[in-house]
């Protein structure tokens, strides 16, 4: 009797231990064996959901929303709008801030576990990541229901996947320009440069004991890639071919090395030595608050810095496009934020997500979101544009707003890796540190420009090959 009890105990304990281990292994097993039907089912539900569905009772439903906008002004507007729409639809929302610097870590964990938020307000890189991880659904129906023509066509194309469907609902956009001190230009009799040589010459002219002509920020992750890419686009050098979507950086070695050479020269001749590790806050502060640099590349947040910390500087700042090597830039570097929605399990939740997003697109709400951002994020929803322009916040910057909007809408602009639409390469470029390692090394003399190019190209090729 006792022997059989012991056996029973042993069997039970073995079972318990096995179950513990299996329980821990379960998510990974599911992940690796994700059946095709599971992956496609929610998408089918998404396409089946009518854009103008009859009112559905959403009571008891809850939506989880993530946003990368952690600054108070932006977060408050977003959470206020989410709460309003939730009340209109009779649902509950849970909003979580995800700081930009931890976004990819959290997204990776979420995508890996399948526990992605229902809606996420994120940038192009985040959208590309979730698209590549097959975690989000197309939003063509939502865009059509709001009015496809009301969105910037350039913006829609950047959020288009390989299947021709649009995976992000454009919210607001930004354009990278050279922000500069108009007063210093005037005092030194300088005019807006039209070539790289002129830009370098202007920067050197502006150099003085307490002032650097042009900040070249090269913080390891993101910033160094952005700085290089702004220069690359102006020279017509890309990571992926805008026409075919194929990786093309390996075919542009000669031109890419020229760009890196120029970046290194600009750093040595006109940038503070410490800018090798400068991030966004450092260079914006130096231009708009302390006034210790005369020019830098930025998407306009420098104005917000000046308004908040040194209002006297606001009138002294202006912007122009980074010039091309010998004339007009081939393209420019643009960015933006959009809403993405994860694949839902059933039609009701898919309809709920669609209705929730549609409700966010009144001209007033779209303008309010764009205006909550430090200058110059402009709404990509055209009906909101006039409200945006009439706002006190941008009243003094009509010229710059028109310039940026025109550059964005009528010029050629790209976000790295997404020259031909959504691509995982974009998220990779944004999160890898190889740009920092290579470009910082090129600037401090550890590597030649060619070595830096090879390091970046090898790394990107390795990623492209692994996909």
């Amino acid at each position, binding site marked *: 009797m*006792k022997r059989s009890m*012991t056996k029973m*105990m042993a069997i039970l*304990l073995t079972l*318990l*231990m096995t179950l*513990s*281990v299996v*329980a*821990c*292994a379960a998510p*990974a097993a599911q*992940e*690796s064996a*994700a059946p095709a039907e599971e*992956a496609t089912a929610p998408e089918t539900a998404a396409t089946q959901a009518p854009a103008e569905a009859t009112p559905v009772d959403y009571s008891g439903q809850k939506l989880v929303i993530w946003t990368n906008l952690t600054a108070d002004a932006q977060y408050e507007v977003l959470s206020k709008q989410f709460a309003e729409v939730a009340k209109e639809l009779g649902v509950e929302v849970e909003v979580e801030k995800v700081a930009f610097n931890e976004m*990819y*870590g959290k997204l*990776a964990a979420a*995508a*890996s576990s399948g526990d992605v938020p229902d809606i996420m307000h994120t940038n192009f890189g985040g959208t590309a*990541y979730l698209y*590549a*991880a*097959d975690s989000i659904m197309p939003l063509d129906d939502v865009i059509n229901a709001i009015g496809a023509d009301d969105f910037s066509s350039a913006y829609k194309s950047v959020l288009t996947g390989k299947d021709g469907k649009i995976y992000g609902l454009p919210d607001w956009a930004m354009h990278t320009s050279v922000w500069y001190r108009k007063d210093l230009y005037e005092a030194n009799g300088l005019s807006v440069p039209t070539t790289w040589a002129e830009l370098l010459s202007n920067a050197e002219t502006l150099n003085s*004991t307490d002032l*650097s002509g042009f900040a070249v920020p090269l*913080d*390891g*992750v993101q910033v160094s890639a952005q700085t290089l890419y702004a220069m690359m686009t102006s020279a017509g050098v890309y990571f992926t071919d805008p026409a075919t979507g194929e990786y093309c950086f390996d075919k542009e070695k000669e031109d890419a090395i020229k760009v890196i050479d120029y970046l290194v020269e600009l750093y040595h001749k006109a940038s*503070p*030595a*410490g*800018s*090798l*590790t*400068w991030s966004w806050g*450092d260079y914006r*502060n*130096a231009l708009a608050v*302390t006034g*210790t640099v005369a020019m830098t590349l930025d998407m306009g947040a420098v104005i917000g810095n000046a308004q908040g910390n040194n209002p006297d500087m606001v009138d002294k700042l202006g912007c122009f496009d980074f010039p091309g090597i010998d004339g007009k830039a081939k393209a420019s570097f643009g960015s933006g934020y959009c809403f993405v929605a994860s694949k839902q399990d059933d039609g009701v939740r898919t309809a709920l997500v669609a209705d929730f997003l549609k409700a966010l697109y009144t001209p007033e709400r779209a303008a309010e979101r764009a205006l909550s951002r430090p200058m110059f994020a402009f709404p990509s929803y055209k009906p909101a544009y006039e409200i945006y322009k009439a706002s006190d916040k941008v009243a003094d910057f009509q010229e710059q707003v028109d310039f940026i909007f025109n550059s964005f809408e009528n010029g050629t602009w790209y976000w790295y890796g997404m020259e031909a639409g959504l691509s*995982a390469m974009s*998220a*990779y470029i944004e*999160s*890898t*540190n190889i740009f*920092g*390692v*290579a470009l*910082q*090394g090129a600037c*401090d003399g*550890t*590597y030649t420009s060619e070595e830096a190019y090879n390091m970046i190209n090898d*790394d990107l090729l390795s*990623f492209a090959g*692994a*996909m």
Partner: protein
Amino acid sequence: MTSGTMLKRPRLITSYERRHKLIGLAFAIPVMVFLLAFVLYPVLYNVYLSFTNASLIKKTSSFVGFDNYVKIFSNKLFLKYFWNTIRWTFFSVLGQLVLGLGIALLIARPMKGGTALRSFLLIPYVVPAVTLALVSKWIMNSDYGIVSYWLQQAGLLEARQSLLAMQGPAMWVVVILNVWRSYPFPMLIYWAALKSIDKQIYEAATVDGAGKWKTFLHITLPQLKNTTIVLAVLRIIWTATYYDLIFMVTGGGPSGSTTHLPILIYQASFGSYQIGYAAAISMILGVLMFGCIIFYVAKSGLTED
């Protein structure tokens, strides 16, 4: 009757022992389950991952044999990062032990306010790494950092330059920060060890005419040998895998000059999404640390009954 009792006795003892063993096993089960689920399983899963091309972007993965290991050793930067790991660990541990011992020698002597002083000296250990990182970045900012300003004024640093933006000095900065933050642990252990040294040995040495230096060299240090070995091994394990401070102060830069293996693992996982590759790097670091653990177990007497 007697023989019957003698026959029954062994059965009683066996039954008791069995019950005793079962009870013991029952008490051990939760710990065993915990170790299996949270130690053995993750380790084995990591070993498995290191032989796959698992990625955070792709939903499927396949077995790739030793490809990840080949990729690691053919990566020209790996050797640099490995060397960084050794420099970071060696100088951090050396600094912590030397500073810890030095301060322990100072506070081991009876003095007024000794308890308050010891508490004060523990402050770095309770300073959160994030606070230390933010303050360090601030005081070493190239434009407004007070340390950078002093060094620039003294002509030791180029105008608008920062130690954190220079490849050589950046590593020394993070090592010094780590030494500052971590010395209290060795200090406390050394202080306790010093207290336990028999005073009579010192008295005998004094009678024999040994000076302070000779006493330290021939009595104190040998008495602290085992403590030092155990401390060194523990600090090596903790430091080599310590990630937060470097990540927050330099992010592994400039140009990878402060990237050590834990940062590389993070970058491979969340910067390159290559979980399989990151697992292979973890295996290399893990094997090195396992060697330290074996050394520690051998030296700390844990193998003794």
